């Protein structure tokens, strides 16, 4: 829908990112959508969501909005330099924080994928591209439609190919452009817009989790070597369940399970066997178990030698 430029704010002497509507507007719907996207961003004041600075119209009539210029890498590039699974999962938890906040504000992202997450030079994680966001509860009156879907349905795909994100989107059967294959939920892929709720974003987060853990989406089963780890596999499977009612009900619940996994605690998505419990307990308390075992072994050896 738009092109993002790096620009200079001459008044404040800082770099900003400028998203400009770069396609001809047939009826002004796209301009309204861009303004609406800016408004969505403006209501989401969170460290994990890129802040919007200004919105307006250029001299040639094109609508734009200015946002924070994020210097960093897209998540899919960044994780190439993060081999540690716990570090990747900690990144994921920060993405969850931002998405949970958006949900609390009544906003669905609907296009969560590695390309839409930026990791800054200082490790800050920012969820980008809220162009497909859906407002579930619109408290403020707006000149733009609360939900852009009507506009999207009537928009020819060619008009939406201006940005990389738009190029990556897919068209569903009745012409609704929503989300990215591999990361969008089944109901989103069907264009079942009325059924979309936060569990649709949870599906995308689950796919993102699989990507962070294994470098692939859950659909790409051939590369899932990490599936030996049943707890993480179960979390991913629950988040990406085809039936929304089988998924986590909130992002916080998903984040809580991932956090428990990181801490070596049981996760709600997986009922573990006694052997798995013992293994997890050992992994969590390896050092004290080894120390106590060393003490006991040493005591037994001393006893044996002293009785000789």
């Amino acid at each position: 829908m738009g092109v993002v430029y790096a620009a200079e704010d001459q008044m404040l002497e800082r770099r900003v990112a400028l998203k400009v509507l770069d396609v001809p507007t047939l009826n002004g719907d796209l301009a309204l959508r861009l303004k609406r996207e800016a408004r969505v961003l403006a209501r989401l004041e969170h460290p994990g969501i890129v802040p919007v600075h200004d919105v307006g119209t250029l001299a040639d009539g094109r609508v734009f909005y200015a946002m924070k210029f994020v210097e960093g890498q897209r998540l899919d590039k960044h994780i190439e330099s993060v081999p540690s699974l716990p570090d990747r999962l900690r990144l994921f938890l920060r993405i969850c924080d931002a998405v949970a906040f958006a949900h609390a504000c009544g906003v669905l992202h609907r296009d969560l994928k590695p390309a839409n997450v930026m990791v800054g030079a200082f490790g800050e994680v920012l969820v980008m591209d809220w162009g497909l966001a859906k407002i579930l509860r619109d408290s403020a009156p707006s000149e733009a439609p609360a939900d852009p879907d009507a506009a999207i349905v009537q928009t020819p795909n060619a008009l939406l190919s201006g940005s990389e994100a738009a190029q990556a989107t897919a068209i569903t059967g009745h012409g609704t452009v929503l989300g990215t294959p591999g990361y969008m939920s089944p109901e989103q892929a069907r264009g079942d817009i009325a059924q979309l709720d936060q569990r649709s974003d949870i599906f995308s987060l689950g796919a993102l989790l699989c990507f962070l853990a294994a470098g692939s989406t859950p659909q790409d089963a051939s590369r899932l070597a990490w599936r030996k780890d049943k707890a993480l596999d179960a979390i991913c499977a629950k988040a990406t369940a085809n039936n929304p009612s089988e998924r986590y009900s909130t992002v916080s619940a998903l984040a809580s399970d991932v956090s428990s996994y990181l801490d070596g605690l049981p996760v709600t998505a997986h009922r573990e066997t006694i052997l798995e419990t013992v293994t997890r307990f050992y992994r969590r308390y390896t050092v004290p178990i080894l120390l106590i075992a060393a003490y006991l072994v040493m005591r037994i050896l001393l006893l044996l030698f002293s009785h000789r």
Partner: protein
Amino acid sequence: MNKILLGLLLGAVLGAIDGASAWFTPAVRAQLAGIIIGSTIKGVIAGMAIGFFARKVHSLLLGIVFGLAVGFVLAFIVAQMQHGYYLEIILPGSIVGMIVGYATQRYGAPAAVQATTR
């Protein structure tokens, strides 16, 4: 519970248990009470030192190494006073120090940050 108190209590308990294990050595069974008291006092001193270290230095590895060092030194002093049983006193004393070092690094509340006023 702060780290020093945790180190003190854990050192005392483990020291007492360690001292009580002397019951399995018939030659010193008669002096069991004195051994338990001495071992408990050694554990308390070691635990306090290790807890104090844990409050200042936040490193699991360094905490365990410091616990090993304190446990070793105190146990060595005790063994010197006993004129024997070096292995039986120094080995368990050192391992108990490591356990307390681990516990004080992993658990126990860090020192409270005091607000500064001008």
